[in-house]
């Protein structure tokens, strides 16, 4: 369907010029849990139209970076700017310029695909238009259908979300994120639970969101190979500190070896 763009993984660096707007800017981000410093001065910029891959070993702080951006975790130091707005660093504050998808997908399994996609728009709906699914405006349903079409699942609109395959559910989650109309999309291990074919499809979709919709996409990946083939830039995180940020073609075995070195700490 709308995934019509041929499967041409990109092998070169970013195509966006340096003049592209910075959609996500993280400077000196610090995060501590009790005594533990989980993020220690992380700097990261993602431009509109750019897809970056965030790499790092388990526990290196990748998910925490994303959580700080969307407000699921408090910020202890540094600054986060999303689409030019400063995130104030308190969990639960109201900004929804960044959308997020998760490894565990987190759809409401018993609701329909379309209802799930519509719920991405809740942040901009007053309660009078959202106290029940039946109160959703018609324009929202149609926008949600367009988002579903974007991920190639318009024909499954009225199916229960739980009845779809994992790969399809992840695409529904992306459609829900699109319905949020956020310029920034964060994806925490979006393909870790998917089979290789479904993973390709999701990566292709993320690529096209950057290329065609000029979204800034940051995806946590555990497969350097996927980063090489789909991302504009690979960013490595070691124990809460940035270790590299380079075009994925420049990733060396030595960099990866250091990134995933066992028994540190």
């Amino acid at each position: 369907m709308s995934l019509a763009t041929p499967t041409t993984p990109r092998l070169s660096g970013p195509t966006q010029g340096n003049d592209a707007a910075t959609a996500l800017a993280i400077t000196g981000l610090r995060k501590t849990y009790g005594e533990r410093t989980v993020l220690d001065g992380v700097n990261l910029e993602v431009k509109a139209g750019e897809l970056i891959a965030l790499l790092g070993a388990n526990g290196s702080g990748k998910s925490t970076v994303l959580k700080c951006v969307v407000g699921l975790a408090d910020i202890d130091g540094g600054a986060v700017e999303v689409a030019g707005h400063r995130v104030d660093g308190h969990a639960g504050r109201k900004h929804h310029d960044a959308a997020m998808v998760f490894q565990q997908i987190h759809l409401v399994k018993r609701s329909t695909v379309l209802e799930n996609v519509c719920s991405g728009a809740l942040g901009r709906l007053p309660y009078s238009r959202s106290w029940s699914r039946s109160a959703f405006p018609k324009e929202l349903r149609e926008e949600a259908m367009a988002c579903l079409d974007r991920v190639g699942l318009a024909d499954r609109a009225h199916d229960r979300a739980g009845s779809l395959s994992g790969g399809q559910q992840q695409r529904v989650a992306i459609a829900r994120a699109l319905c949020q109309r956020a310029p920034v999309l964060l994806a925490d291990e979006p393909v870790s639970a998917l089979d290789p074919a479904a993973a390709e499809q999701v990566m292709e979709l993320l690529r096209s969101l950057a290329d065609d919709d000029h979204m800034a996409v940051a995806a946590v990946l555990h497969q350097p190979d996927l980063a090489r083939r789909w991302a504009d830039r690979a960013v490595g995180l070691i124990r809460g500190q940035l270790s590299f940020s380079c075009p994925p073609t420049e990733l060396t075995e030595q960099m990866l070896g250091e990134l995933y070195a066992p028994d540190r700490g």
Partner: protein
Amino acid sequence: MSLNLLPTPGPAAAPPSSARRLAVPPRRRGVGGTVTALVVIALLVAAHAWGWKTTEFSLPQLAAGWQGMVGFLSDAFPMDLDWESVVLPGLQACGVTLAIGLMGTTLSIPSSLLLAVLGSRATSRNPIVYQVARAIMSFFRAVPDIVFALIFVTAVGLGPFAGVLALILHNTGVMAKLWSEAMEEMDQGPVQALRVAGASSAQITTHVVIPSVIPQFTGLLLYRFDVNVRSSLVLGLVGAGGIGFLINQSISLFKFDQMMTYILMVLVLVIVVDVLSGMIRKRLNA
């Protein structure tokens, strides 16, 4: 921590032909554990000795009362199966009992839902509202439905209406607690996902929490219906109508043969409701 991966040498070592074995390291059991166990046992024994005395538990007394039991049973059989005066009123009263249980359960849904939403950590973010809702729940749960029934009988008079009102109050407390816990146990992932999208707590409640817990809610509702039908029997004993009222009447008139018929009807009623609600719950869980 050290792992000994080498097989233990000597006679304990496995013969080369069989599967490899490793000696189980001795498990350390402190003296503290044994002492705790002894103290717990002593406390339990003391508690039961006290209970035995307090309730005047007495096997000789039971043996002495045996005569009375036999006399009672010989009065109860044969059962009085007269259609006009016993069976038909009994069936009608069973209907009343069932109706009390049904109305008491269904009419407590709105209040239970409200209290559950306000008193569940999954949906209520204001600590004061949460605590107040929990307190109201605890109160209605702590006061037995029979006490509410006695109050309502004096207020609205003898009859099934008092029973319905009593069940609504007590069941609201119990069902709100069960429902709020069901909401707390649900997967928080979808809640987080929509929080990221900027949804408010009220929106998350209607679009994530309630749709996700519908099967649990329905199962608990059926379970409460089952319990409430049995409660409404007891409420009948204090004047709230239904088959319980007839049983009470026949006992005070020493008509044990009638009472036996009513008890048999109760047995059938309870089993039918139990089996039916069990069947539906099983289908829901499947």
